[in-house]
């Protein structure tokens, strides 16, 4: 709760700072504040917190179980805060033409962050609903934040219409669940969900809720909004959507699914599998023909959503949480790195066509290297973080299959991993389109020399280092969400 308050407070401080003409202080204050919060969160995360979602019962006693601070929510919260730091650091240079509105942008992002945290830390469905709505509404605002740009308008409009529609579904789902169990408290719902005389609405409600979240993570067939909105929105907003929002949605979805309904029906899992396969394949296939980098990354995001849905092949909740977290970390940090470069290259060009990247390897080798590594990481090539993420997922899916008693289990697992592998192979095709543009094409003749603001470069390099570091020491990321040897040692040596 204190995390939420602190962040919301930061948002308000930003708004107030604008009133007192302290515009220059907004970004530093919020970044410093967020770093402080991050340190606090990570510290709590390492030190304790229950490991399992199943331990949801009345953790935050003081808050009537509105919010819980188990390892899962703390770990994801730290990831979100980190992403927000990056996103806010990118803001001032991105919005340099709209200086007066900077406080709005930053504050909106901070509120968005509170929404995201509420989405994973909820103990009560009302908190969850508020979180997802805060996140969504902030994103509508950000998507349409260039009122004179028709593309931005269109993106905002589309996102808003479909998002509101999905909100309706989520709300309807929540209502039905409430109707079936008589409570919004997840702990109560969980116990009730196991009782045999559960009304049928519960399942319908749960499915509707899931569909709403599938929409938020842009899984096929609820993905149509994503490419258009990603393309039309200002690039920084796209970065926010494709990293923070997407990761928050999948984390919330996973938590919701297992918090409400610890025994998911086979039918439901099958549906999720089909959706996952469709997302992976369709996302990657359609990405092949894209020439706009943001749009391409949107489709890539769809396929990554598909990968992350594989997490529902559950074999051990702890492992699944850790794998999901790892994937989210790898994916979103690579996304930040990629977008930092996209912003640097296309920030002043108005569009994000691939040919803008021509010859980047010569004109700006560092940025080219960062983007290459980010893309390779997304493609799942060792030794980058993305490889371990995919490895963990595949490993989980296979272990689920191998430990299932029926032959069908292993066949399902094989189908899933092979689909995943095939789509990984396809994905290389378009990731490399960008890499080829950077390294084997001559720079465009009319392009001006690239002036890269320090903030972009800093974000790019920090995220690049993180991609590599997490690849080299995968335990680093995992230790936030599960007790690893690393954490044990730190505790033993009284570092934390």
């Amino acid at each position, binding site marked *: 709760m204190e995390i939420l308050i602190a962040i919301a407070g930061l948002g308000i401080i930003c708004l107030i700072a604008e009133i007192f003409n302290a515009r220059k202080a907004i970004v530093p204050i919020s970044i410093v504040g967020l770093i402080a919060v991050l340190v606090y969160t990570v510290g709590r995360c390492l030190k304790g917190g229950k490991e399992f979602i199943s331990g949801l019962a009345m953790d935050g006693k003081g808050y009537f179980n509105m919010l819980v601070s188990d390892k899962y929510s703390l770990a994801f919260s730290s990831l979100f805060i980190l992403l927000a730091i990056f996103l806010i650091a990118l803001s001032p240079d991105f919005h340099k033409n709209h200086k007066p509105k900077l406080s709005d942008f930053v504050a909106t992002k901070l509120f968005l962050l509170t929404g995201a945290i509420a989405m994973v830390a909820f103990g009560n469905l009302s908190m969850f609903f508020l979180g997802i709505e805060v996140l969504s509404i902030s994103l509508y605002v950000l998507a349409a934040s260039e009122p004179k740009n028709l593309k931005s308008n269109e993106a905002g409009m589309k996102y808003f219409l479909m998002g509101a529609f999905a909100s309706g579904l989520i709300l309807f789902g929540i209502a039905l669940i409430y109707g079936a169990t008589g409570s919004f408290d997840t702990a109560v719902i969980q116990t009730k969900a196991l009782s045999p005389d559960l009304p049928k609405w519960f399942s319908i409600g749960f499915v509707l809720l899931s569909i709403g979240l599938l929409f938020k993570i842009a899984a096929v067939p609820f993905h149509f909004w994503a490419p258009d909105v990603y393309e039309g929105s200002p690039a920084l907003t796209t970065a926010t959507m494709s990293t923070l929002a997407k990761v928050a949605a999948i984390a919330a979805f996973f938590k919701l699914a297992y918090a409400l309904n610890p025994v998911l029906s086979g039918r439901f899992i099958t549906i999720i599998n089909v959706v996952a396969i469709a997302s992976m394949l369709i996302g990657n296939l359609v990405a092949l023909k894209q020439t706009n980098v943001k749009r391409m990354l949107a489709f890539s995001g769809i396929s990554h959503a598909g990968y992350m849905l594989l997490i529902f092949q559950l074999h051990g909740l702890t492992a699944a949480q850790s794998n999901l977290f790892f994937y989210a970390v790898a994916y979103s940090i690579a996304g930040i790195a990629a977008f930092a470069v996209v912003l640097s290259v296309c920030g002043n060009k108005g569009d994000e066509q691939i040919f803008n990247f021509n010859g980047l390897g010569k004109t700006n080798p560092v940025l080219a290297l960062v983007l290459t590594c980010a893309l390779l990481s997304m493609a799942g090539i060792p*030794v980058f973080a993305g490889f371990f993420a995919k490895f963990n997922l595949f490993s989980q899916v296979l272990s689920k299959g191998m430990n299932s008693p029926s032959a069908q289990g292993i066949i399902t697992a094989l189908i899933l991993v092979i689909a995943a592998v095939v789509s990984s192979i396809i994905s290389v095709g378009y990731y*490399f389109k960008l890499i080829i543009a950077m390294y*084997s094409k001559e720079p465009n003749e009319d392009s001006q020399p690239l002036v890269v603001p320090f903030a972009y470069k800093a974000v790019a390099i920090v995220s690049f280092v993180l991609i590599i570091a997490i690849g080299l020491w995968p335990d680093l990321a995992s230790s936030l969400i599960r007790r690893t040897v690393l954490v044990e040692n730190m505790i033993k040596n009284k570092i934390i």
Partner: protein
Amino acid sequence: MNVSLILVILLFGALATWYSGDKWASKVALAFSTVAFGVTAFLTYRFFTVDNPTVTLSFSKMWIANPRVVLFFKADGLSLAMALLTTALTPIIILTSFANLFPRKASFYGLILFMAFAMAGTFLSEDGFLYYIFWELSLIPIYFIALMWGGGDAEERKKAVVKFFIYTFAGSLFMLLAFIYIYQRTGSFLAFNLYNARLNETEEMLIFLAFFLAYAIKIPIIPFHTWQANVYQKAPAAGTMLLSGIMLKMALFSIIKWQLPIAPHFAEKYKYIFIALCVAGVIYGSILALKQTNLKKLLAYSSLAHVGLVAAGAYTMTLDGFRGAVLQMLAHGFVVVGLFFAAEIIERRFATQEIADMGGIRLKTPVFSSMFMILVLASVALPSTFNFVGEFELLYSLAQANIWMAVVGGLTIILGAFYMLRMFQQVMLGDGTRAFADVTVIEGVAFVLIIAVLLFFGVYPKPLVELVTPTLNELLTYIKQLR
């Protein structure tokens, strides 16, 4: 001092080269690669002299807790032999590139060293996960080398290189699945544990095939070879040398080290199918080589034929087959680097790869033509060259398995002579008027080193045999025990 030092030197060398700037890059790279070779050679020497060498010279340290991965670089005969190949060829390859006026030399040589690092890592890793990481890592530098410094039409090159990358990446992802699958059984990636995974028949089949896909694409075995000729032709000479000289040996090595011990039953049961496929590749590659008009493509197809034989030998799962495969890998590594270097020298002077545009070179270049001739002869496995040692043992192992396989595989000595001599005749002999400068000192040194290795081990292969035999025997024991 243990084998991890080789990797450290290579990696550090790659970084140092990258930072040293274009002017010094080639020299720095040469220095580091030579030191790496020196260290490898010294370690090999120590391997013979110290007690319990594998324990003394290996390196192991916990890396990742989940999945359980150990940084385990093992010094056994096989891995040392392959590391020797890598570190010995790297300086030679760097030397061969000295005359190329590449842009961005620092990156180029840095990538070569990084590539050497990844390949040496592949050979030394005892942990399957680690092995896979190095395996994939080696793809990246070669991709960039081929893409950025290659020749020919840019679009064509991109197409070929991307095809190569996606193709090999596809194959290796299936290998990754296989590793993950076994890991679920064993909870460890260490080779020993993987060997003892106790898989049932279906599982073995799937895993064997997954490995096969990865290796068949990389080696390549027909019909997975279509990437090869184009990439060999379009990559810069150094890239082609790295690919053909070392990288494809990664896959051959892996057959012996990973595929067969992990899935011995399936391999034993269906080995003839795979031997036949490889042997078919020998004939197929040879006949195609006959029809090539491009020198580098011809060499590529000849390489296809040679490695087909190596793979066939490995699949016989006998000591002779294994040992022949390892020896032939080493021999082929050197000879193919030499041949591609010869092609590169011609291309430097004539600016063409088309055989039809060449001829009459021998008139002007006594030294170069002699060197080229020796390499051609080594490539057709003339006795007293290293290649003969390998090929003899391979064919013998095939004969033990099935005499007809040896007969068909042995056709390579006829067809090989056919296309190589035909090539030599058209490229070097005949009358010609165009000027052709004989080899420079640096070029000559590279040739002499290669030829010295080929002739020395052709006559005295004993040290290498003694190096690899115990390890291969050990692997065979595993295979036999398990089956």
